[in-house]
């Protein structure tokens, strides 16, 4: 599971008012190289919840991202920053671990990089 995916997932348990972001429990992180695409990064940037993303990257062991979101102009010119953004967003994978509902603590397992978001009957 990439952090781009993590930034789009939320807990859907009945009664939970704020299920985003899911807390990450790491067992195994894998780095998978992907070709960088600057335009893609610029397009996706406005859709990213930056705080959730930068917090998640630190939990995954990557400390290069600022806590505050950069100004959009940074993405136009700062190639070094784009590289870090790209790496954290697309190249860090939670291979084994879990995602926890921020309100209830319920664990959604992540196995072979695939989150299992199925709920039990009493959570629906």
């Amino acid at each position, binding site marked *: 599971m990439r952090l*781009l995916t993590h930034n789009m997932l939320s807990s859907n348990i009945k009664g939970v008012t704020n299920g985003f972001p899911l807390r990450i429990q790491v067992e195994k992180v894998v780095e998978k190289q992907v070709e960088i695409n600057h335009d893609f990064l610029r397009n*996706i940037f406005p859709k990213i919840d930056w705080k959730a993303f930068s917090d998640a990257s630190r939990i995954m062991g990557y400390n290069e991202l600022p806590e505050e979101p950069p100004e959009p102009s940074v993405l136009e010119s700062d190639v070094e920053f784009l590289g870090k953004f790209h790496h954290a967003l697309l190249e860090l994978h939670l291979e084994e671990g879990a995602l926890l509902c921020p309100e209830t603590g319920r664990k959604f397992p992540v196995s072979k990089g695939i989150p*299992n*978001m199925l709920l039990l*009957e009493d959570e629906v």
Partner: protein
Amino acid sequence: MSSDRVLQDGIAEFYDQSSGLWEDIWGDHMHHGFYDPASNFSASDHRAAQIRMIEESLRFAGITDEPEKQPKTIVDVGCGIGGSSRYLARKFGAECHGITLSPVQAERANVLAKDEGLADKVSFQVADALKQPFPDGQFDLVWSMESGEHMPEKAKFVNELARVTAPGGAIILVTWCHRDLGPSEESLQPWEKKLLDRICNAYYLPEWCSTSDYVKLLQSLSFQDIKAADWSEHVAPFWPAVIRSAFTWKGFMSLLRSGLKTIKGALVMPLMIQGYQKGVIKFAIITCRKPE
């Protein structure tokens, strides 16, 4: 265990067991091909027909080729092994998230995405279409290609499709329905129900609804530009072709190896043809747009 849970487990197991065989013989698109009614075709045209199904669906929904209006984020509800997800991600340069009940399918989908150089654009999760793990309004395009027939509680299913659609975004729902009921009809005829029950049993399908049931649900959610069509005549060659593939040596041996659930599914294929021929089963497309 509730019946919904039993159904979910059945669906997951059916696809865990059958996906490999299907992919081996038919490739990574687990949906009908779209054919011109009067044309002749050869066996090799089916893959092209499956791609055409995707393109015709996009066209029906009015998804244009204009770059500014193309979807940037897509959810593939009932994604199978990700055929649609990868196609759409590649076509639009979009981010696509697929959900399936089958862990085997999700894993295979990820492997195929990596093989095709799309690992940065598509991701797959095991999740329930009736309880999608996404916040509201995430996706420019909500895509459900032949998965709606598996959903119990159609109202919940449509509600979730609607919830995750972004303002101004589109829903494309292609699914098996039963015929619309006449004005004086409360339900299908007993023989029609019996036919569908046998199909439901083999394919892990809950009760069917009609195309106009879906339209009414979307109307009640205030969606705009709601369009629906019956594409049954455009998919007619598909099931006979699938049956023929089961009778090839490769198909037959694969069936024997795959398991009882898959075999049962294969045996019921003639009923699908019967259902279409008798006008009970309709291959429907329903599309609409969320107001800005």
